[in-house]
């Protein structure tokens, strides 16, 4: 794993903001500009065939930039797991062309946090109904007042 991290640092340079291993779990923190290239490199050269999970964190008032998109990768061939975090201001590149399974996860993250995934062909509602106002998992979402009932159809 250390070889891989060193290779990534060499290849992507300043785009890798940080990397650390804690309790046997390795985390990479990257800039959103280099995200797509890095993911492609991880799949093709790093052997991470599978995107296990894709979600986001809202650090409202605690960190800048506000959002952090989190990717969990798994390599069957090398039995490795890797976490990639990408701090962003509400817009990152989609990885749906790298892992097809990212589509639904990106839709869900878009629906809950309002993070736009550039390149995802279908950013529409998946769990909530069409016309849902706002982004419910954002920290400044006022759920008691802001959510009407869906239309009867």
């Amino acid at each position, binding site marked *: 794993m250390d070889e891989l991290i060193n290779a990534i640092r060499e290849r992507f340079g300043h785009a890798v903001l940080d990397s650390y291993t804690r309790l046997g779990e390795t985390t990479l923190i990257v800039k959103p500009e280099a995200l797509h290239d890095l993911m492609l490199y991880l799949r093709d050269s790093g052997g991470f065939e599978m995107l296990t999970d894709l979600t986001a964190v809202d650090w409202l008032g605690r960190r800048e930039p506000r959002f952090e998109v989190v990717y969990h990768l798994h390599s069957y061939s090398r039995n490795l797991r890797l976490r990639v975090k990408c701090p962003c201001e509400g817009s990152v590149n989609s990885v749906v062309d790298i892992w097809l399974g990212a589509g639904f996860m990106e839709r869900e993250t878009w629906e809950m946090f309002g993070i736009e995934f550039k390149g995802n062909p279908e950013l529409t509602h998946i769990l*909530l*109904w069409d016309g849902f106002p706002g982004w*419910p998992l954002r920290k400044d*979402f006022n*759920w008691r007042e*802001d*959510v009407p*009932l*869906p*239309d*009867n*159809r």
Partner: protein
Amino acid sequence: MEIGERPTTEARERFLLELDEIRLRLSPQEEEAIRRTLAQRVLFTTVESMSQWIVNWARGNSLFPLTFGLACCAIEQMATGGPRFDMARFGYEVFRPSPRQSDLIVIAGTLTKKMAPVVRQLWEQMAQPKWAIAMGACASTGGMYNSFAVVQGADWIIPIDVYVPGCPPRPESLLYGFLKLAAKIRKEKGRLYPWIK
């Protein structure tokens, strides 16, 4: 006074006089005995309130619940219908698969906002007279789901007659709720004719 004859003033006075004569012939003990017999053995009522009582009794003891469940409360509802707790003892076992045949809806479980229009439509499809039970904490108040996705109490959507607490309630609790509803139905006035709301 002949049958069919209209009671004239004269006839009525004659009748009252005869009544007085009968009463004069009775001793105070006999009068007391007649009064007591009337109070104990004869029911004075009207056709309206008698039929109201009968209809309420029949409705309260043969509720047809809708086959409908939303979450874990539905499991308890099924157990209530099963042989161990045996809802059939009270006459509530006929779960109808269509809202048009049922007169009771048990909101058994978490009522999400996406489900709310469906529940509302089911309620509107049910024929009068109809009742609703909110089963469990979620259906009563939203329960632990202080969330954007959950209706905070089914009474935002439909009128609820009985709230059953619990998470989920034991089958005994649900049966008690049914009996409470039956007691409520027995006290109802009006709604005698189903076609009048």
